């Protein structure tokens, strides 16, 4: 027993010395599963080129918020994390994040960082989050199936009527092939890909400052009718009704779906993981043309009080370099530095240009209760979209969601 303790003490001492002599430090960083394609590569590249190291954990999309909150409460939070940008206001409001205003403003390229990110990363005039990865929602279509169905494989739909007509033609191929896919029970997926249809037609679901829910609009009704019609005509696989997001990308990647609203991430993911799928990328259209997009992605935020701030900054610096931005773009994120975006995208798939344009003009809702309103699997938005796409009482579902969302907004702590 005594020897064991002695040995342990010796090992501990040795470890302590080791830490003292090696100056390299390791920072722990989390990313949600959406970043599982590009994040490991950028971390690898950083670790190879630097003495300081980054240890990456990939957390499932739905778990990262509760897991981070629990870890923060228990004092085991990572030094930094790549956080879905819409959460930055509520995290900053909770006093969980390190104020990085001075450092951010000292970056020579600060002014050309993605404005949607910086806007959500700013809380009460202080900066708590900087853009890390960017993702804009777009519409993708399967060129091979379009050709088989007698459609022009190079021309994607440009308004709602075309979406429906093209989907119907592809669907007519029969067998396992379906015209259209969306995750019908996933709030996050649909705020990303369904609301742009509304925006492009001139409507919105929240007021500009997030203080009013505005669900009762003809634009929302119109977009709902489009989806309902496609469901009724059986253009959508039956599994869509209960898909909580697990098949959001996988359904199209399997090659049996004609059209699916998706995101820029799909370009990198399809190119690297499903090189056989021949697809086109276009904007999410409004009822009669026009287009819009959800400018999403992750903000890079630093846990308040971390001791690895230097490593974290070094890592972010690397991510902002041309090399970092190119790795990001190659594996599924859009570049977040406007001044070098062209260079980072130069040798890449031209389809990224569409997504980059969508990103630049995209919208991002701002709300401190985004999780409760939209992303929660049991929240009013998720419940409403499932009811209005597949249920019988559209008016009741919208009225109910409007009331619940407004009461959640009104009950939110005023900070």
């Amino acid at each position: 027993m005594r020897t064991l303790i002695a040995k342990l003490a010796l090992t501990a001492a040795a470890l302590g010395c080791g830490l003292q002599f090696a100056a390299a430090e390791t920072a722990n960083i989390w990313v949600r599963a959406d970043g599982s394609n590009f994040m490991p590569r950028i971390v690898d590249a950083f670790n190879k080129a630097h003495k300081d190291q980054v240890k990456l954990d990939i957390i499932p999309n739905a778990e990262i918020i509760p897991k981070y909150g629990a870890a923060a409460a228990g004092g085991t939070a990572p030094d930094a994390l790549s956080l879905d940008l819409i959460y930055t206001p509520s995290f900053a409001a909770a006093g969980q994040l390190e104020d990085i205003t001075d450092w951010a403003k000292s970056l020579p390229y600060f002014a050309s960082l993605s404005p949607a990110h910086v806007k959500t990363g700013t809380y009460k005039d202080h900066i708590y989050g900087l853009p890390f990865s960017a993702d804009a929602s777009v519409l993708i279509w399967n060129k091979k199936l379009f050709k088989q169905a007698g459609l022009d494989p190079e021309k994607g739909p440009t308004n709602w009527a075309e979406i429906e007509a093209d989907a119907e033609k592809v669907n007519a191929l029969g067998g396992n092939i379906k015209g259209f896919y969306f995750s019908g029970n996933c709030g996050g997926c649909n705020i990303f890909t369904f609301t742009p249809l509304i925006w492009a037609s001139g409507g919105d679901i929240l007021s500009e400052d997030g203080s009013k829910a505005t669900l009762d609009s003809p634009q929302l009704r119109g977009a709902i009718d489009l989806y309902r019609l496609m469901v009724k005509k059986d253009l959508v696989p039956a599994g869509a009704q209960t898909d909580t997001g697990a098949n959001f990308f996988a359904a199209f990647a399997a090659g049996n779906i004609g059209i699916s609203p998706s995101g820029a991430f799909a370009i990198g993911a399809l190119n690297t993981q499903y090189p056989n799928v021949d697809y086109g990328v276009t904007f999410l259209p409004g009822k009669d043309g026009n287009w819009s997009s959800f400018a999403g992605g992750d903000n890079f935020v630093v846990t308040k009080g971390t001791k690895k701030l230097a490593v974290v900054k070094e890592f972010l610096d690397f991510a902002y370099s041309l090399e970092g931005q190119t790795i990001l773009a190659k594996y599924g994120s859009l570049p977040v530095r406007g001044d070098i975006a062209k260079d980072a995208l130069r040798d890449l798939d031209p389809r990224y240009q569409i997504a980059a344009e969508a990103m630049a003009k995209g919208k991002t809702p701002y709300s401190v209760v985004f999780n409760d309103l939209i992303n929660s699997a049991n929240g009013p938005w998720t419940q409403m979209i499932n009811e209005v796409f597949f249920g019988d009482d559209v008016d009741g579902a919208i009225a109910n969601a409007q009331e619940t969302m407004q009461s959640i907004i009104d009950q939110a702590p005023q900070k």
Partner: protein
Amino acid sequence: MTSIATTTTAPPRARKLVGAGRRQWIGLLYVAPAVALVMLFFVIPLGMTAWMSLHNWPLMGEHSFIGLDNYWAILRDTRFWNALKFTGYYTVVVTIAIFAVAFPLAIFIERQRPFTNLYRTMFFMPAVVGFASASLLWSWLLNVDSGLFSPAAYDLGLIDKKFNLLATFQPAFWSIIAMVVWKVAGFTMIILMTGLQSIPQDLQEAAVIDGAGPFARFRAITLPLMRRTLALALILSVAGSILAFDQFYIILRGGPRNQTLTAVYWIFNQSFVSFKLGYGAALSMVLLVVLVALSLVQLWLLRKPEGLD
């Protein structure tokens, strides 16, 4: 058992006080590890939960004392009471279903006959799978596009259009019941089997000689003598069902349309989706009271009748 233990540990009065005191200290020492574990993993967390329930305690940021406000809020929280109602409904249905399957199985495998061990193993097997893994497995089995049930029925020509089992309440609810019965019945079966085996064979034989039929024997001998076993199986099943969460979270996400939100699911949502840990703690305390009350009622119902050992 209890009576023997008391006689050996209680020291005779005539003994010196010093000796008795020391013995008691040694006794304490023996139970110390168990007490420490219970303190560390039950009493202290419970105390902390109670303490947190009196605070406005967000997942991140500062917390503040608000007295009983959380409890007043629970009174008005209709979604929690709906979740509790659904949990009650689920508990009743699933407990009846488990016993309806487990009891016949227990009777079937109680006695040695050819392949009994094989059957026992087979029926018990699902019990060793974790609830989360079992839920993932069934989540795939139930998937309408790439799963087993619906595509198989479609390919066999039993239905003309693939039927999404998880899209409406009734099929979704009964799918979960089927999954839980598949998973838990084997465990309940083993508990019931040990109860059946502890009934002396001569009682049954005497009853046969007296001319009692199988139903009369089951009612007059088997059931009364299995009282304690039944109590154990029932309390385990009810407590497990009231705390149900995994299967509804993993397979249904509380859907379709939030109709299968259980009490624990609601607590999880309040704590980790809405970040209201204090409120979640208060809900947990309420659920604890409900559970303790239900267990006491069950123990009282299945208590030992007077004069019967």
